[in-house]
């Protein structure tokens, strides 16, 4: 046995394993066990009969970090700042993203005021030491931290992005004086400017430090006890993997550890099929997420808000640029007291679940609407493990939608299709945000849809966005876990650097990039001896006065003139205008180092058998704008390569259903993917 991917989510734990000799995949699913998380992983291993002593690599993604923030179940943190600045964490940027709420408030800071300590030191904006660290204050500081009952410590000093020596010095001292506490500091996580964002990042890392150390210890112990002697990798939010040691030092890097797998798989799949740039679209039970994969790469964002932009706090870590909306299979349809219909973000989850599950859920969900319209077969859900109750779905629609809107009882079809239209509008909005909002034209992308719900809605979303081709990979429900097996180690290293873009900046930038490259390469090489490392360089630039920078690739020789042209080209592509006179300044450099991928042949496994005989049945399915029509229903694993038909059609498999509209056409591609060529929008 070679590699195993384990994805521990809030509700379910998924496992995918790959045996390269026999070329077989194994899948397993179990309820997540709180307390000892390894228990659910062990259940999955037992279900597949995999013995850990035959496993070379375990890849692990987890939602524990984000859950700790959402549930506020992290450590008691002490923060140490430059004298005069302990309140920066509480004051933040003093903005109110919601304009008219007198009661607007941010989520409270992770560190209460009595646990925020100051030490005398000062470095100026040029990095020059104005006042050395007052080391005499350290012992008293340590006593106060002890007395405060803190379990971990974050250190963040003013202007340390420019000169980190004080911050690193105090961090090292605290590590030796408080050996039993988790100690972290801002510049070890980000070298970018802005004191609030850096302090917030350090505090957030300290908040999950002790908890993740315990979690990783338990997980590691579980693996070793089972006889595992191979490599244990964690899924990082930038699409790379981390060693357990790096995960212990930077647990915050695991904040989007869950969704990253789908993007990695999408990238590999797009490359294998020559799809060009794709939108990776993942619709699950409670949310839908989308991210872009361009030339095999996905963008990482420089500031990520834990708890969302409106109420949350920023962290500066390389985290996948992903847009998430509260629309999934379990999203609840409701009508508010002013007669407006909404779908999500409230979700019925897995308990009690959609009304059709018959587990006590009474509210109408997206899944209920899909079932009522015949788009999901009642008997086929999860391979028939589960029977869905159409009567309950209809009753919920009547209660949640038809009665509040004053529609006729017989209008169940219209109500259900309304639920889907609104859910699709919300999801299309997310795709517009990740494309149009970032200067990309959605029509030039392929929509790659996966997750339990993605294939059901892909064709409609593609039509609404004028995307000509939607692709459904094989095993869409396990696509994310599959991606974990394909991940490659990667380090993103960004650093603030300010200079007007001109010839005199070039030697400085080159020297800085060289230094970062040497540091990053050796770090990656140390973790993965004997492997080949490749790097890409980027520069963050902006017009003088601007807040946000634009990222430009900076590989090869650097000169100011061509960088200016590259900047203007990228700027114009994003915003449709550019200024050729206004001064441009450099605000930072970014280096991405990754191991050169040794592609594991994971994609061809589900290739359709050429001799397969299509199994087709029929049922009535409601089609938007046409009403109920008799529609062919295919069993996916019975469709051979090259099989093609015009819609409408439904294609069913374990864990997912693909819906083909009446104006669409589909064919089965060589890796078993369903290619949907979309017709005109049906609005």
């Amino acid at each position: 046995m070679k590699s195993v991917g384990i994805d521990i989510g809030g509700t379910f734990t998924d496992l995918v394993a790959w045996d390269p000799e026999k070329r077989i995949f194994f899948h397993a699913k179990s309820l997540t066990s709180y307390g000892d998380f390894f228990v659910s992983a062990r259940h999955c291993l037992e279900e597949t009969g995999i013995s850990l002593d035959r496993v070379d690599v375990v890849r692990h993604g987890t939602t524990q970090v984000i859950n700790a923030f959402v549930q506020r179940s992290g450590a008691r943190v002490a923060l140490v700042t430059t004298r005069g600045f302990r309140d920066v964490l509480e004051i933040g940027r003093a903005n109110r993203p919601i304009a008219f709420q007198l009661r607007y408030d941010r989520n409270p800071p992770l560190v209460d005021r009595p646990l925020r300590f100051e030490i005398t030191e000062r470095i100026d904006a040029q990095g020059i030491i104005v006042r050395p660290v007052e080391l005499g204050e350290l012992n008293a500081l340590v006593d106060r931290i002890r007395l405060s009952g803190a379990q971990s410590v974050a250190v963040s000093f003013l202007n340390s992005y420019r000169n980190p020596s004080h911050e690193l010095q105090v961090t090292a001292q605290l590590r030796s004086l408080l050996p039993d506490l988790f100690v972290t500091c801002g510049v070890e996580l980000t070298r970018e400017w802005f004191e609030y964002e850096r302090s917030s990042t350090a505090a957030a890392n300290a908040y999950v430090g002790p908890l993740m150390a315990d979690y990783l210890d338990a997980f590691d112990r579980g693996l070793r006890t089972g006889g595992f002697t191979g490599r244990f990798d964690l899924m990082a939010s930038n699409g790379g993997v981390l060693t357990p040691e790096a995960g212990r030092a930077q647990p915050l890097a695991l904040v989007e550890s869950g969704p990253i797998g789908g993007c990695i798989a999408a990238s590999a799949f797009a490359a294998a099929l020559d799809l060009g740039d794709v939108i990776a679209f993942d619709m699950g039970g409670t949310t839908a997420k989308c991210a872009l994969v361009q030339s095999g790469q996905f963008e990482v964002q420089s500031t990520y808000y834990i708890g969302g932009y409106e109420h949350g706090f920023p962290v500066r870590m390389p985290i996948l640029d992903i847009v998430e909306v509260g629309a999934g299979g379990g999203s609840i349809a409701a009508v508010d007291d002013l007669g407006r219909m909404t779908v999500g973000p409230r979700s019925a989850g897995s308990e009690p679940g959609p009304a059709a599950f018959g587990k006590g859920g009474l509210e109408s969900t997206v899944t209920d609407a899909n079932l009522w319209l015949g788009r999901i077969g009642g008997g086929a859900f999860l391979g028939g493990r589960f029977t869905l109750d159409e009567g309950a779905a209809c009753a919920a629609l009547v209660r949640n939608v038809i009665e509040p809107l004053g529609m006729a009882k017989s209008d169940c079809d219209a109500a259900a299709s309304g639920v889907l239209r609104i859910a699709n509008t919300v999801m299309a909005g997310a795709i517009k945000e990740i494309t149009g909002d970032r200067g990309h034209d959605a029509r030039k992308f392929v929509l790659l849809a996966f997750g339990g719900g993605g294939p059901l809605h892909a064709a409609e979303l593609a039509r609404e966005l004028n995307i000509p081709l939607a692709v459904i990979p094989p095993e869409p429900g396990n696509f994310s876990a599959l991606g974990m097996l394909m991940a490659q180690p990667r380090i993103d290293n960004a650093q603030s650097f300010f200079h007007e873009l001109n010839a005199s900046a070039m030697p400085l930038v080159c020297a800085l990039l060289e230094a970062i490259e040497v540091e990053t390469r050796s770090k990656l090489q140390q973790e993965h001896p004997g492997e080949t490392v490749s790097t890409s360089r980027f520069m963050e630039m902006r017009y003088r006065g601007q807040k946000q920078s634009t990222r430009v690739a900076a590989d090869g020789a650097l000169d100011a003139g061509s960088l200016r042209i590259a900047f203007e080209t990228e700027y114009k592509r994003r915003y449709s205008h550019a200024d050729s006179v206004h001064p441009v300044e450099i605000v930072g450099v970014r280096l991405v180092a990754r191991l050169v991928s040794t592609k594991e042949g994971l994609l061809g496994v589900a290739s359709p058998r050429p001799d397969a005989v299509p199994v087709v049945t029929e049922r009535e399915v409601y089609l938007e704008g046409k009403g109920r029509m008799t529609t062919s229903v295919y069993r996916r694993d019975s469709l051979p390569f090259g099989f093609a038909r015009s819609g409408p059609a439904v294609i069913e498999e374990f864990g997912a259903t693909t819906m083909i509209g009446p104006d669409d056409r589909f064919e089965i591609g060589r890796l078993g993917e369903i290619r949907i060529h979309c017709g005109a929008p049906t609005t």
Partner: protein
Amino acid sequence: MNVRPMPEGSDGKDRITSEVIRQRLIAIPNIVDRNITRTAFSPIVAEYKDYAVGIVDIKGRLISQCKGGITIFVANALGTAVLDGIETYGIERIKQGDILITNHAGTMGQHLNNVVMYTPVFVPEKPELPVAFMAVVMHWVDVGGAIVGSAVSNTTTEIWQEGLQLRSVKLHDAGRPIEEMYRVIEYNTRFPRMVLGDLNAQLAGCLQGRDMMVQVYADYGIEAVETAVSLLWDQSEAATRRAIRSIANGVYRASSFLDDDGIRKGAPIPIDISVIVEDERIVIDFSNIAPQMRGPLNAGRNGGAVAAARVACKYLLTPNEPANEGAFRPLDIVIPDGKFLSARPDAAMGGSGSMLPTVIDTIFAALAPAAPDRVAAAHHGTYGIHMFFGRDPETGELFKQSDTATGGWGANCDRDGNGPFRSLVHADTHGVPVEMQEAMNPFRIDSVALRCDSGGAGKYRGGPGIEKIYTPLTQMQINVSFERTQCPPWGLQGGQPGQVGWVEIHRDSHVIGPLAKATEDIRLNDRVRVLTGGGGGFGNPATRDPHSVARDIAFGYVSAKAGREIYGVELTSAGDVDEIATSRVRASFTDWTKASPSVQNSHNQFTREEPQA
């Protein structure tokens, strides 16, 4: 109770289509908003977000507006501009590809930096007339006038001292840029590259929004979009009406005052406002406020009375609803011409927004007895501008770092005050990081800290203000414009006022200040101290949960002295509540207002009358 508007002949399917259209109409300004933040050149647009994006119909009615930005623009700055353009040109002379701009004080009633730009939306289905307008109002950094930044003088007395006026002129004619207009703009600002850069972001925003609107009309047709818009207005109107109905009928009144107009120092400007609630309507009557001033604290009717009334109503009645025309249908505004919120077109209007926080606080105060659950005690209530400027000694270049006050907000009837935030006419306005300020200006900031005891005491405490200390690294100047130093942020229902904010300069062994409206030199070894106000408290402080007081003391929000003297809470040596001693002290507060001299506040002229039945 049936408040659900149901247009004639509509059925559920139309309702669902309308909902889909509504979501797209609300999304468009928010998408444009984000791109403007990314592409603007000046910090006042990119960081301070002094702009707003919206869609208006051809009658100037607001269809939707972006979520963040500055709240004043909800007074339909956009619609007012469009209507003036239609009146000036005639709708038939507004063509596809036209871009119009205006900052005319007589119609907009705001300082001249606020420039509205808009473009018509044409659809093939009805090519002869526009169906809507996409509009962006933006604060241009400088439009000429007596002082750098145009609008920040404390001493202008006429609008012509405050910069260039452009009344409804075309910047593009049928898609063709009018180069002469660009030249006029370029040569009437001190920062042409920055203004033209911002203008490009504004222009791109108008065009992007317009194209997205065209797509909405193409997808659904004019009739369906218009049905959706009227439904959207009706729903917002219904939400407002329902909120008004929850407030007892009556005439509610409150008064306060501004420090002075910047010219006649120390002469207060009275504010006296009546709010009439009658079933589902609300009337805000400004008839008794002070007349137009000589100095720049004036606004025209739209930028003044209408803006204040609409912002106040939005906060009070429908904070969670999107802003549009319908939300304000049940609101009437009464104000004669020539008041400081309905100033004549020639009045100086540099500070056209800076009176509004106090005016809006006063409207809340009037309604406090009738709707205690909707209002808050007063907030720090000032823009609190503190602008450092001068020449860099090394490069000789002009530098300017403008900041505004972030202070405490008032407590509600069931929770402590929030903040520190900027004033309630600001919203998603980001403070500039210390590291950025220090990298760009020759000064250091030595501390940024919450101010102990600055939040007004109460059963629920006001939010805290802050204190900042600056060390100059060269000689420079500071321009200060603070309000509410004489009429502190009041408490409600027995809550105490928050502390006021000011600026002071420490030189050798003496202090210059407190400064409120002034321009001063700063020398090399000076220290500049900027203090911002706290919010007012709500309810009698002697009824505050003693454990909350103990926590406040442990957190340093409240001093042990104030805990004892104002809240009547005694602590043990371990910092826990001494229950017995606390009961004893609190029992002695029979008339708690006399418990301690510090409780009295001689500045607080705020009065309130009970509603007349």
